[in-house]
Structure formats: structure tokens, C-alpha cells
């Protein structure tokens, strides 16, 4: 990776963490602490979010989108830091499967994130410095609790739908488990009810890469004015491989050389795939906080819904009134179809109303973010059916 590229730009991310651009913000004071799984009552804290579309008079058309590990609230509008389109613009927007002309879409940055919701890069009011590792460890359930508090703040009792992929899908499952009466339908996509040993192992490699960067300074880099971008970039590079399939990498890059016809017999990025990964790493560090990466990967590692029900997954969804639409992708080896099938089996055993589709694609785990017409048709059809059952009037 080009050295110069990674040593520039002083840290300005603390600002985005405290005063997020292009976002709405709700602050919860000491009277409304976030009760964390770790036992801590965290307060004060804030949640940054975005909304799209209009809430109907009955307040029955709200859809909560839960973002994945490195996503944020900018689901269907231009990202204030990167200037790129929203991360799920193919899915969410006017006339899209999650149609903002019909539904009131809410997407919030998870707690522990770095785009405006309280996280390790936020300022600790007690010290005036960024939290760093003094930020409490959070879980997927904590994220969902914060989202539920946001929903209370917005005066919305029941969500028409909760949707998300990967870590977002975990939040969807947690929503259905924690607040079944508040979720009319749930769309957990490309996810699992627990993180596997392999998933945890990959995350640990990423965390170790961050912590091995001398600029990480025990998590105090924002205070000491350093920036562990190399470590974070390596973490992202490693993780990015897990989001793609072997076939997709081969189709995209094969063994092609980057801007050259012969190997240089050096450790330059000779191969296109190397160059691509380096780009993924270096662009990621421009918008993401290294400590947030540690906290959010940890939250995923701790996720295991069945564990709270004596290991019986079906008990987690017993008597659930929620309609489920579970989707997996054939080439996703990070959250393989077998994990989704386990969700479906548990929901069947709980007599839940569940649809399940596996989509054929060679795009790997990332397929849920990409242009997959079959996925769009399924989500659209499922939501249409649910909207009919819910008696949702078309807003158009």
C-alpha cells in the first residue's frame, strides 16, 4: 500500500461522531439511560438517524432499516463523508422494493458506531475527550434497545417492517425476539442467529490488525493525535475477502495484472485484486473509526439468540405474531444458507409465519447490497402481501 496515501489527513472524524451532517439527532439525558447487557446504564447518549418518506396518520407504515457492520444511517441518500450514494439505494427509495412513497423509512446509526450515534469516538462528557476504550462494550440487543428508544421518541408504537442484512439482519432477529408485538414483519437477510467460530475468528484477525498498528495507542489515538489507518485498512481488506466469493473474485479480477503486462518481481500491487483490496482498505479508513470497528465486531461475536433460551432457538420466537421473510444467497460462505435454514426451522417449530428464499448468485455475502432482481422481487412481493394483511393504504 502506498505509504504517502496513508499518512496524510489529520483526524477530523470526532466531529462527525458528535455532530453528524445530513442527519437527525436525538439525545437521551440522564433520565433515560441505555440499559446495556453488560449491566451498565449508559447515559447521556445520542442516536443519529435519517428518515425517508412520510409517516401516515395511523403511524402504521414505519419501516426500520438496520445497517450492517460498516454501514450507517445514510441508507438512501448521499453520504456526507464519501459523497457516494446511499448504501441500499437499490432497495430503498421512491418506487423501490422498500418504497419510500409508501413507507416511512427510519435508519439509525447503531450505538458504538461513528456516524453520530454515541460510540467510542464520541466525546465523553466526564473528561471532554473521546471515549476510546472507556466506551462500554455493547451488544446487538443494546443496539436494538437504542432503536426502540428512538421509536418511542418518534411516537411510533409498531413497526410495519424491520429489514437488514448481515449485522443488520442480526438486529432484525433481535427486534423480533425482544419486541415481537412491535414488529409486524421482519426481513433478516444473509445473517444468522449466532456468530460462528469462523466468523469470530475472522473478526479477531481484524481486531488484531487494528491493535497491532502502533498508532492505535491502546485505543487513545484520537487523544494522542495519531491514526491507526494502516491497521484498520488491513482489517478491512481481510474482511472484504469474506464478503465476496471465490467465483466473484475470479470473475472480477482473475489473475490479471494491474496496469502492467509482466510481474515486477517486487511487492507492489502487481495483481488487480491486490490493488482493489488496497483501495477498499484506504477508502474505508476515510470514513470509519478504528475503535468502532473493534466494538461493532465484538457485538456481532457476542450475538447468540438461542443462548438466552437454553439453546433452543424456537423458544426465542414462541407465539411470535411477526411474519418473517428470510433470505440467503448461494455463494455466501460468511453467513451460509444453512444458518438461514436454522432460523427457518426454528420459526417453523414455533409455528411462525415464515417465507424463505435462497437466491442463486456468485456475488457472495455482499449480494444483499447489490443489484439482485430476484431479491428485489421477493422483498417487494413479501412487503406487498404484508401490507395487504396490515391494511396499509397506498399513500400515492
Amino acid at each position, binding site marked *: 500500500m502506498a505509504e504517502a496515501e496513508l499518512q496524510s489527513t489529520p483526524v477530523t472524524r470526532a466531529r462527525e461522531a458528535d455532530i453528524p451532517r445530513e442527519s437527525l439527532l436525538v439525545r437521551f439525558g440522564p433520565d433515560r439511560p441505555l440499559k446495556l447487557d453488560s449491566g451498565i446504564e449508559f447515559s447521556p447518549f445520542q442516536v443519529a438517524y435519517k428518515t425517508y418518506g412520510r409517516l401516515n396518520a395511523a403511524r402504521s407504515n414505519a419501516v426500520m432499516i438496520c445497517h450492517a457492520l460498516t454501514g450507517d444511517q445514510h441508507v438512501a441518500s448521499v453520504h456526507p463523508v464519501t459523497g457516494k450514494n446511499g448504501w441500499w439505494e437499490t432497495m430503498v427509495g421512491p418506487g423501490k422494493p422498500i418504497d419510500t412513497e409508501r413507507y416511512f423509512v427510519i435508519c439509525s446509526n447503531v450505538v458504538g458506531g461513528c456516524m453520530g450515534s454515541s460510540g467510542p469516538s464520541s466525546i465523553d462528557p466526564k473528561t471532554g475527550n473521546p471515549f476510546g476504550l472507556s466506551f462500554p462494550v455493547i451488544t446487538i440487543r443494546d443496539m436494538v434497545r437504542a432503536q426502540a428508544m428512538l421509536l418511542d421518541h418518534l411516537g411510533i408504537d409498531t413497526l410495519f417492517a424491520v429489514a437488514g442484512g448481515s449485522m443488520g439482519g442480526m438486529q432484525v432477529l433481535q427486534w423480533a425476539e425482544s419486541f415481537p408485538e412491535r414488529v409486524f414483519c421482519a426481513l433478516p437477510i444473509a445473517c444468522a442467529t449466532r456468530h460462528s467460530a469462523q466468523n469470530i475468528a475472522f473478526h479477531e484477525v481484524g481486531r488484531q490488525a487494528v491493535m497491532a498498528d502502533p498508532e492505535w495507542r491502546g485505543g487513545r489515538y484520537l487523544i494522542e493525535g495519531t491514526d491507526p489507518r494502516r491497521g484498520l485498512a488491513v482489517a478491512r481488506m481481510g474482511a472484504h475477502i469474506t464478503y465476496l466469493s471465490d467465483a466473484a473474485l475470479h470473475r472480477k479480477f482473475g489473475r490479471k495484472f494491474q496496469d502492467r503486462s509482466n510481474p515486477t518481481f517486487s511487492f507492489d500491487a502487481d495483481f488487480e485484486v491486490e490493488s482493489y483490496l488496497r483501495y477498499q482498505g484506504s477508502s474505508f479508513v476515510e470514513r470509519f473509526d478504528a475503535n468502532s470497528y473493534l466494538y461493532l465486531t465484538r457485538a456481532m461475536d457476542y450475538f447468540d439468540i438461542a443462548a438466552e433460551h437454553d439453546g433452543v432457538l424456537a423458544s426465542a420466537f414462541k407465539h411470535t405474531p411477526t*411474519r418473517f*421473510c*428470510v433470505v440467503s444467497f448461494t455463494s455466501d460462505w460468511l453467513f451460509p444458507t444453512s444458518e438461514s435454514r436454522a432460523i*427457518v*426451522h426454528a420459526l*417453523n*417449530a414455533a*409455528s411462525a*409465519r*415464515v*417465507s*424463505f*428464499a*435462497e*437466491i*442463486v448468485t456468485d456475488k457472495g455475502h455482499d449480494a444483499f447490497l447489490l443489484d439482485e432482481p*430476484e431479491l428485489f*422481487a*421477493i422483498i*417487494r*412481493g*413479501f412487503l*406487498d*402481501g*404484508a401490507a*395487504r394483511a396490515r391494511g396499509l393504504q397506498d399513500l400515492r
Partner: protein
Amino acid sequence: MNMQARPQRELAAAGAARSSGQARVDLLVVSQMVEPGARVLDVGCGDGELLKILTETKNVDGRGIEISREGVNLCVAKGLAVIQGDADTDLADYPDDAFDYVILSQTLQATWQPRVVLEHMLRIGSRAIVSFPNFGHWKIRLKLLAFGRMPRTTNLPDTWYNTQNIHFCTIRDFRDLCNEVGVKIETAVALNAWGGRLRLNVPWWFWNLFGEQAVFLLSRRR
């Protein structure tokens, strides 16, 4: 098991009826057996035609299992609650008495273990509806007798080496299985080649000879 090919068998069998824009006659007979508002599981639901009929005409709470991805994705896109699964392996996951009716339409002969499937159906549901092609139909008998080859008909057009139908039976065979498993036959209907119902007050051997398809409504023996 071949996960891809099985629905084509069903689609082939249903092809003629569908192309004319009409629902398959056996589906209509099945739907007539279902009480309004019931909880229904359709095993091998194909493209969801029966579930759609039942939802629209009987207001049932319907769920489906389908082995083919194409079928499942079509169903879910239609707003039906359908999962990808296999009658032979996935019925075991359902709890007892989860449904009022479990339907197996033109799928029994394609399962690995028809008896186990039947037992699961009447464990999961208090009633079961099974429709299947009758291998005892006179045309099939005649073809085997006259040509000495595995018969192929309009409804069963596949060659023996290419068919998903691995457990053919006759109406009599199925009735014997019901007795052996200990389930009660509530209603049985045989359809002739034109989809008409055969007369009720005829002996079984007549049905077995002239019924091209059969639909059975079963319940647990008390």
C-alpha cells in the same frame, strides 16, 4: 436427491391446464375439501396456485413448502408464506397439530418415503389431503400389457429414467397404505381423464381402473 428437477414434473403435469388459464381440476377438488379459515400447509406447493386459490376463496392461513428455488421465489414474490424445503426431510421440524390441513398435491409419488411423509402429515395436521396420479388406470395397464414398456401418458409424460416419480401407486395401493398406517379415509374422489368425478357408488376396482387421478381426505383414526 435432485433438488432442481422435481418441480418440472409438477409443472409438466399441470402445464396443459395452466396454459388454458384454468386451475388444475385436482386443485379445485382439493380446495373444496378445505374448511374456510383453516390453517393449511401445502407440501410441494409449486408456484403457489393452490395456496392462492385457498387464500382467495377460503380465506385460509396458508403456508407452503416447495423444493425448487424458482417455485419458492415465485410464491414469496406473490406474498405467500412459502419456504424452500423437502417433504422427505423438513416435515420433521414442524410441531404436532400446527395445522388443520396438510396438503400433498401430486407430490406423494415423488417422495423417497411416502409412508413417513404421510405419517408426518397427520402428526402436523389433524387432516391430510393427498392427490396423486393413479398408476392403475386402464390406459397405463393397457400400455404396459400391449407394449411391455413403462407407460407414458399426457399426465405422466416423462421417461422412466428421467422421471421424478419414484414411488408410483394405484388407488388400491394407497388405500392399503392408509389402512396400514391407521388413518381414516374421510372422503375419496377419483377423476377421469377429462377431470370429471367418477360416480361415488361404484366399487374400488372401478375407480382403480377408470380414475386417472385420486384425491383423498384423511384424518387420524380415533
